């Protein structure tokens, strides 16, 4: 019961933050609501930007991935992000901030429209960005419902849990706007940062230290490979360095870049970002790996056994039995089970709050969509000019409510697997959109038609992969099956982990083709380059 009480206290706390944020709002105009008046200080800017980048995957998914795949998880996702994300903030984020401050931009699409002197192409970019963002919001509602049901031992049913979480997120985004969202993200990030070290210390003590557990893993042929990277190819590892390019292309991160009070606030964020990564990801990955030695925790033992059965008999089992075993072996809740097995109830309760914080990370996406809708659609199509800024802010708030209600209804009706798939390729989609930002900010010769080609290509590629994966099921055994071959060369393959192109994740060809399209199409349409005055605003004379 204590975990449920702590989680409800947590929900009350974040709602209160939204209320306080509303009471400290001074101006009440669109910039104040959507961008916190471009006034965030260095600490809140660092922690909230970092928190906005951390999804539920960072704590739960990272441990689950490490439980199944070993230490490779850290190199795949954490150290690559620690390099690429701060560098993209350094090169692109700072320029977005400066342009936003100078020209009053509140969304990336506003900047694209101004930079390429286009209107409806900006609307196309808005639509693709929005479609790629919505599944995260649905997943968050589902995660909230599942977590509340789990911590209350079923006392709070899924549909009530989902509704409570939706109302709380909607409440503080509605009331506090960007200020409330940033403060809640700061609070959540502090919770994440403190949880990892505490969990490692407590679980390590309960297990009698990690040294013996590691030696046992090394001695076993089934678990020793988890302590190296021999199960993945260097090409696959290389592919993952393209995923963090998505971060700066996500609208909510681009919009967050506009909230800093001063350019100097980026300095600490850039330098400390990798340190925050290590503080959250190293404990998550390490605990996920070490869970393979926690056979004295019944729930973890059941996962290990299911995985062993899949590996030994997978090819001979029925599809239903295989799916059932995959579900049992799934490591997404392994850190929860580890804490339940080894940690005192107070820590399990805190973990419940941390998990809730992780699954509620959709707040900045909801606010970003609301900002985009009001700025890129409502204002662009003369809404603000006709009705004024007060109506614009109310429209933004109404959009937050509508979006939350729609996401909740979808979460009740549709299976989660669809949205898992969607979010899996949303990262690739946003990486593929990254050349838009690079071209807009660094290449005078880029044109609106190049931008349109990148956007349409990204949408088509994401849709094609999703369709391919729904038509071609994952192979039953570990080996990948060829979907498209040229001679003896397998061009497209399907594995349990997803789709591969020439041994690479789809994000690599998607991003490279995007960059190529921007160059080729822009060179083919030089007459569409913006006028000298526009170019001077971005590149000087």
């Amino acid at each position, binding site marked *: 019961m204590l975990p449920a009480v702590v989680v409800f206290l947590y929900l009350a706390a974040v709602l209160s933050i939204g209320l306080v944020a509303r009471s400290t709002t001074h101006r009440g105009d669109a910039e104040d609501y959507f961008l916190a008046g471009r006034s965030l200080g260095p600490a809140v800017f660092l922690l909230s930007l970092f928190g906005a980048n951390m999804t539920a995957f960072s704590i739960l998914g990272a441990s689950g991935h490490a439980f199944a795949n070993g*230490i*490779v998880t*850290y*190199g795949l996702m*954490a*150290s*690559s992000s*620690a*390099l690429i994300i*701060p*560098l993209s903030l*350094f090169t692109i984020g*700072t*320029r977005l*901030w*400066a342009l936003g401050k100078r020209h009053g931009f509140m969304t990336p699409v506003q900047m694209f429209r101004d930079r390429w002197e286009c209107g409806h192409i900006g609307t196309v970019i808005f639509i693709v960005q929005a479609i790629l963002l919505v599944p995260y919001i649905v997943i968050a509602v589902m995660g909230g419902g599942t977590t509340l049901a789990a911590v209350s031992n079923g006392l709070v049913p899924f549909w009530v849990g989902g509704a409570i979480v939706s109302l709380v997120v909607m409440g503080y985004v509605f009331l506090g706007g960007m200020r409330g969202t940033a403060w809640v993200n700061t609070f959540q990030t502090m919770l994440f940062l403190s949880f990892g070290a505490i969990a490692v210390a407590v679980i390590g003590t309960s297990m009698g*230290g*990690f*040294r013996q*557990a*590691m*030696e046992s893993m*090394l001695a076993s042929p089934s678990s*020793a490979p988890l*302590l*190296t*990277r*021999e199960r993945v190819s*260097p090409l696959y*590892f*290389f592919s993952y*360095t393209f995923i963090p390019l998505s971060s700066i292309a996500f609208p909510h991160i681009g919009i967050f870049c506009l909230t800093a009070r*001063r*350019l*100097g606030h980026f*300095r600490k964020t*850039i*330098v*400390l*970002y*990798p*340190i925050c*990564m*290590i503080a959250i990801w*190293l404990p998550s*990955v*390490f605990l996920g*790996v070490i869970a393979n030695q926690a056979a004295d925790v019944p729930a973890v033992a059941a996962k290990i056994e299911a995985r062993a059965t899949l590996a030994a008999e997978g090819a001979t089992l029925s599809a239903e039995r295989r799916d059932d075993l995959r579900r049992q072996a799934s490591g997404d809740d392994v850190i929860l089970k580890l804490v339940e097995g080894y940690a005192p109830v107070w820590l399990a309760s805190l973990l419940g709050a941390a998990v809730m914080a992780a699954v509620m990370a959709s707040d900045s996406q909801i606010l970003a969509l609301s900002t985009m809708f009001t700025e890129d659609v409502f204002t662009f199509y003369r809404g603000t000019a006709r009705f004024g800024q007060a109506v614009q802010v109310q429209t933004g708030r109404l959009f937050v409510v509508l979006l939350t209600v729609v996401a909740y209804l979808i979460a009740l009706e549709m299976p989660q697997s669809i949205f898992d798939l969607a979010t899996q390729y949303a990262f690739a989609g946003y990486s593929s959109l990254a050349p838009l930002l690079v071209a807009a900010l660094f290449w005078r010769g880029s044109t609106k038609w190049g931008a349109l080609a990148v956007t349409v290509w990204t949408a088509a590629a994401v849709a094609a992969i999703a369709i391919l994966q729904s038509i071609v099921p994952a192979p039953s055994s570990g080996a990948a099956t060829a979907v498209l071959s040229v001679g003896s060369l397998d061009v497209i393959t399907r594995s349990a982990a997803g789709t591969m192109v020439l041994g690479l994740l789809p994000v690599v060809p998607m991003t490279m083709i995007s960059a190529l399209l921007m160059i080729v199409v822009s060179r083919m349409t030089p007459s569409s380059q913006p006028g000298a005055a526009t170019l001077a605003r971005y590149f000087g004379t």
Partner: protein
Amino acid sequence: MLAWLVFAAMYVLHQDVWFWRAARPLVFGFLPLGLAYHAAYTIAVSLMLAWLVKHRWPSHLD
């Protein structure tokens, strides 16, 4: 130019094929070598970024 070279070096250092199949020695007695390497790498990235922020800061944007 120097900044690009430093970035390229860090990118190459991320692709540490040299520790691909090595788990030992366990750093501090419990961290597999590959994981310890990437943890140290993350700290090195932070130092590299501190250098970048100090010496290549785009102050003209302010």
